[in-house]
């Protein structure tokens, strides 16, 4: 039957499938490559020198969600209003896939111009060229930017002496205490030494019949647990050998800190972690045993009192106080980390991106930033923001915040040096802290473990 088909008709029957096959292939490829191609063309039209209208369009990508997005929108609106030559478009991506998405965008040649990132990972990014140095832009108006920042804010964005990131919101850590639990335990004032803290918190544990009902204090559990977070209180943050390797094993301050952590190994870590996880599983993770009124002492940041407590348990609003965390360095201190803005490799408009990142840090924008930081519960990047009337009003209304702010300029405060294996170090110190608490490693073994893991980052 088919043999009777005329040859022209047969030829046509071949042409149609071939054309359809080619069309479907082209459509599929176009669907995959479409956005990148269009972005590339729009980027080239903006081209760092501006579009036809003279406005440079830049994109800002963040991993924030919830209430913070309202703040980000306000910031973008304000920037666009005050900078008619630059237009910012903000987008959000889930934090769980944020880093992977950024890398994909860079690999595809279509990264955002500005990306907000938790700074410990920046050492890796700077080491392999994922992000651009900002040092070339520190001229003219921006010549004084580095000195304008708090020293720990500046350190958090530097890799091998070059500036790679500008802070948007900084952290500061202090000791929260539950007033009514303190009174119930017969303690008249919060502790000012490590020995007092241990003795006071010991009076607050409640474990009737082996069931954990109330925690005194446990430095080994919770989101802020870990050797690293307590490092500044002991002067044990940047322990490196002369060869630039992690060397906590040979660092006396690190040994002191590890021994202090081991002091708490008689408390039921599993139960404490279970309680932390249970409270963390509600209210979008903003709750914890301290917020719930189940923990006597907590080492935490300003957002605990400024956001978590008012939002999830307002009854605690007048039932907490804050003091500098006692340590061995002789003065209040904090461990400097925060959310920083970076310019990814291949960003279309790095100059405009830098202008926006500096503005977000509050440089030449202190008045507006002083209004935004309190809403986010954020520590500022510079003392000049603190001096603004809006920030002072926030401090006056919440005097406990002064502890956090004053620590930012303490000479004992320190930011962890950005390294290419910071992520491995963070995981190792968290595991080591847990090992100490579970007595599966001695403090010295835990320090050896941290050095080994951080220095021998596996594979490539």
């Amino acid at each position, binding site marked *: 039957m088919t043999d009777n088909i005329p040859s022209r008709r047969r030829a046509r029957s071949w042409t149609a499938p071939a054309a359809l096959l080619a069309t479907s292939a082209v459509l599929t490829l176009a669907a995959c490559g479409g956005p990148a191609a269009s972005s590339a063309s729009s980027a080239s039209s903006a081209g760092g020198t501006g579009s036809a209208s003279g406005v440079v369009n830049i994109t800002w990508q963040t991993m924030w969600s919830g209430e913070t997005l309202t703040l980000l929108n306000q910031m973008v609106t304000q920037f666009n209003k005050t900078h008619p030559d630059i237009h910012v478009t903000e987008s959000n991506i889930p934090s769980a896939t944020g880093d992977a998405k950024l890398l994909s965008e860079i*690999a595809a040649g279509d990264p955002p111009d500005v990306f907000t990132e938790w700074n410990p990972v920046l050492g890796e990014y700077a080491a392999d060229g994922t992000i651009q140095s900002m040092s070339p832009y520190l001229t003219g108006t921006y010549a004084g930017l580095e000195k304008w920042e708090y020293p720990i804010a500046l350190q958090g964005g530097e890799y091998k002496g070059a500036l790679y990131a500008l802070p948007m919101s900084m952290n500061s850590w202090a000791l929260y205490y539950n007033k009514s639990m303190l009174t119930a335990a017969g303690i008249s004032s919060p502790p000012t030494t490590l020995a007092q803290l241990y003795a006071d918190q010991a009076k607050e544990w409640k474990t009737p019949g082996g069931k954990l009902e109330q925690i005194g204090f446990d430095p080994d559990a919770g989101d802020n647990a870990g050797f690293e977070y307590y490092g500044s209180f002991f002067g044990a943050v940047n322990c490196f050998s002369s060869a630039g390797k992690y060397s906590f094993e040979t660092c006396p301050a690190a040994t002191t800190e590890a021994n202090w952590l081991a002091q708490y190994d008689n408390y*039921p870590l599993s*139960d404490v*972690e279970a309680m932390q996880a249970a409270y963390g599983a509600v209210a979008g993770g903003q709750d914890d045993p301290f917020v719930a009124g189940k923990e006597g002492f907590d080492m935490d940041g300003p957002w605990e009192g400024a956001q978590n407590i008012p939002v999830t348990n307002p009854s605690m609003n007048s039932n907490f106080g804050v003091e500098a965390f006692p340590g061995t360095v002789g003065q209040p201190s904090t461990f400097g980390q925060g959310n920083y803005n970076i310019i990814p490799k291949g960003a279309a408009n790095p100059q405009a991106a830098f202008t926006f990142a500096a503005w977000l840090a509050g440089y030449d924008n202190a008045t507006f930033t002083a209004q935004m930081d309190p809403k986010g519960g954020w520590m500022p990047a510079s003392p000049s923001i603190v001096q603004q009337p809006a920030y002072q009003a926030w401090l006056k209304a919440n005097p406990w915040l002064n502890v956090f702010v004053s620590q930012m300029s303490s000479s004992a405060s320190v930011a962890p040096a950005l390294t290419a294996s910071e992520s491995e170090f963070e995981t190792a110190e968290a595991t080591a802290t847990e090992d100490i608490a579970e007595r599966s490693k001695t403090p010295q073994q835990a320090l050896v473990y941290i050095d080994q893991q951080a220095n021998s980052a*596996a594979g*490539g």
Partner: protein
Amino acid sequence: MQMTTRAVIPALRSPGSRRLWLGLLFVSPWIIGFCGFYLYPFLATLYYSFTSFTGIGNPTFTGLANFDSLIHDTTFRTALFNTFYYTVVEVPFSTVAALGLAMLLNMNVRGQAFYRTLFYIPSIVPVVASSLIFVWIFQPSFGIVNALLADVHVNGPAWFFSITWSKPTFILLGLWGMGQPMVIYLAALQGVPKEMYEVAALEGAGPWQRLRYVTIPMISPIILFNVILSLVLSIQYFTQAQVIESPVGSPGNSTMFYVTYYYQQAFQYLHLGYASAMAFLLFILVLIVTVVLLKTSSRWVYYENEER
């Protein structure tokens, strides 16, 4: 040369070839999708497994260095053991539980539809949501499980947060999602001819013998299907462990599963070459397990229309 061309063209225009090309045309969306989203990523992963690569710039060829590092990586060995433990215990456990439940729901009782719906509903709850709920259910101090145990004077453990109990707790959590295989078993049970049970009963077979010699052989292809599916999912266990444990793998790396470690290497440390080597080994592992299971299945799987 001319001879060859002349010889080829008529061959292409033959009816058989045309049918082949038309067939290829109709499956071309699948072929393109397969090549773009499966074959290329697979080959790329294989290539990257021999390189040092962070996702940016050019990968550096390192030969077998990643595989050598894996052999000496103690966390990798722990992750492999944890995954093996979970798979070996969870697969039989969930298979028996799902099959048993399907048999119960296959009985003619009042409210049968209600019970079927009730037992299926958990499997449509998002995994992240159910994981967070189970954090509360297994909370050692005020969770419902330990409260019930306390009523019978048993001191419940710390479940997810105990080195000893963390993996068994994840296995228990796995039962929450057994509605899916249960429904498949239920459909298979309803396909077993009633006459076979009647004949077996006439021959004097009791309930156990009917199960052993009628039910199980008749649904054995479905059991094989569910076991393979369950094995592959167990080897790739990830979401629940990632959501519940912080830091990932705690306590004491007792919940560091293969894929959670892979995820950590790939997306936390950006060791994409190392992670690619892990992904390739995972593929080999799943392939071996599946092939072994399929090869041995001829001994215990009964196909009704099969000639033996």
